[in-house]
């Protein structure tokens, strides 16, 4: 009788605790439910400023530093030179950078790229398709993708040059 009551209460409490835990965890501690750390990164094809097609799945075997940005976004502007200089270090170690512009005019993007002399491929997501697939909210947003195409980390907000270096180190194959 006493035993039965104890187990009954324990089971009911455990079920409720599990339900609450799941709800709060999935809602608060997981960034944007559509895409999460550990998922495999959705494939995409976009055209860079020189007209070359860039497809994510072609980068298997390399670490990919995937950055979403806009020219009006001040933090993006600040971190671009950092990414550029670290890219020059890490590209020889198998880390690639793809910078996805969130659908601005080509002229505007080109001006920005020329100004900062960016050497990595910059693609424009003209129809918001890639932004939808990665569920992009505020800019900048950076996805660290390892050589198997898995998302290792999602960073929203500004990065220092030290951060960029650290992140590239993490996805080095």
């Amino acid at each position, binding site marked *: *009788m*006493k035993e039965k*009551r*104890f187990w009954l*209460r*324990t089971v*009911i*409490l455990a079920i*409720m605790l599990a*339900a*609450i835990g*799941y*709800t*709060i965890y*999935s*809602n*608060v*501690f997981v960034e944007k*439910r*559509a895409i999460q750390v550990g998922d495999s990164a*959705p*494939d*995409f*094809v*976009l055209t860079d400023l020189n007209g070359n097609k860039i*497809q994510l799945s072609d980068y298997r075997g390399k670490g990919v530093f995937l950055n979403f940005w*806009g*020219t*009006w976004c001040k933090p993006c502007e600040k971190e671009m030179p950092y990414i550029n200089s670290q890219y020059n270090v890490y590209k020889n170690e198998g880390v690639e950078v793809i910078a996805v512009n*969130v*659908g*601005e*005019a*080509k*002229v*505007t993007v*080109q*001006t920005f790229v020329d100004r900062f002399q960016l050497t990595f491929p910059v*693609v424009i*997501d*003209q*129809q*918001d*398709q*890639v932004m*939808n*697939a990665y569920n992009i909210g*505020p800019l900048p947003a950076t996805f660290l993708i390892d050589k198997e195409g898995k998302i290792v980390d999602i960073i929203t907000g500004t990065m220092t040059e030290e951060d960029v270096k650290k992140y590239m180190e993490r996805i080095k194959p």
Partner: protein
Amino acid sequence: MEQVKCECGHVNPIGTVLCEACGKPLEEVPMLLDMRYEGSARRSQTYNQTIVDKIWNFFSSVKVGIWLIVITLVASAIGTIYPQQMYIPPTVSPAEYYEQQYGWLGKWYYALGFHDLYSSWWYMLLIALIGVSLVICSLDRVVPLYRALNNQRVTRNEQFLQRQRLFSRAQATDYETALRHVVDKLTKRGYRIREENGNILAEKGRFSRWGPYVNHIGLIIFLIGAMLRFVPGMYVDENMWIREGEIKEIPGTKGKYFLENKKFIFEVYEKEKEKEAFQPAIDRVGSGMMAKNYQTDVVLYERVGPVVAGEEPKLKRIKSFSIRVNEPLKHDHYALYQVDFKLDELKNMSFHLTDKQTNKSFGTITIDLIQPEKEYDLGNGYKVQLLSYFPDFYFDENGNPNTRSKVPNNPAFVFKMFAPDRPKGEVSFTAIRQTIEPLGDNKYKMSFAGIETRNVSALTVRRDFTLWILGVGGAIFMIGLIQGMYWNHRRVWIQRINDEVLVAAHTNKNWFGLKKELEGIFNDTPFVMPIDQADKRS
């Protein structure tokens, strides 16, 4: 020591106030019995041994439940003091916005999660704890109540009867005949009669006692439905802005569906166009002041083949539809609702290349403000290069031209104008009503020639597989409420003890109704109508 034996022989769980069978008080109780839960042992009050019991007993307290509700109400009220995150400008970071606008209070408001209250972990925890409290409170009360009502005997302890609120005692004359008469009348009134040794228990509406618990089951189902919204795929709620002429992926459909905006229509009530009968109403608010219709004419497409984001999609037309307010486009459980619009967004801008002195034009260029060209050749050695483009222009804190967004709200351009007599080109910064010549006086200028605009429509994308659960929960909630509110649980005891007739009656609500009913039953019988002992004392 888990049980208490009553003198009638029934064995009650510890903590029982009134014997489940005969109703004899097992503890010191006031003159009039408190009949809540039939004086049964709420289980929380009894066992308190393990940590599990302690947690259980904490949530079993109605007082705790009410405090949880009060705290939630207060938190919700605080959440209305400053705007919620969804209402602040989307371009600013909320962390900065609240502090800038509201000072240190705003800073704490943000830090504590009041800015996005319904998604803050502690608010959800509060709601969840209310749910837990609901389940445990109900379980702890409904089980003993059920036991007590199921175990009740016809013959009650004398004390139980005389301590009921409605009670009378009289000499028994011709008891049997009178009893038949009363039983007859009670039956006609819908009472179910149980008889034991010439004693009577008449009872009706017992199911009303389950109303609160049915209601709570409904609430729990409702909460489960709300919880399921967080399960991926169960609930989609997205927004999309789409310009006239655009084909765009519908967010939340994982790249499967695309939408084309053919046209956005905004109509108002105008005096000339409406029937005679509406004229006074239109006069009152003014002609053209009241909205009549918001409508987006769209075509829905499905992508054929594998989904690779960014790739030019192969599309299959599914259907055309006119989305209006409350008339969503529905397909594959998705619904697209009209929610917002923007009239006359700039689409194209035209300029003449003119000689400042003679005002002679050497040709016109039309710039697509979403995707401008790099170069516009006007022939005869005249051409215009676009060096920079700022769709939403402003001067930033360093005094440089910059753009606030990618929306062409306030376009500005840096042109380089070439002419046969200016082969190296002249640079001109051109914005709306503003021209700057950064490298000295120019011979040529870009003079404004006109604009083309189009409308933009905003749609909400919804897919909700939890709605039916919320509906079922809500229906059960209402059933429980009605069950508990519109029926009363009424009982009448008639008992002969020695040579006296004892009559007692109880209802869980609406004593007035019970008294009226009993007057009708007892008026022409030898039995004495029970008297309200609560009245007598005051």
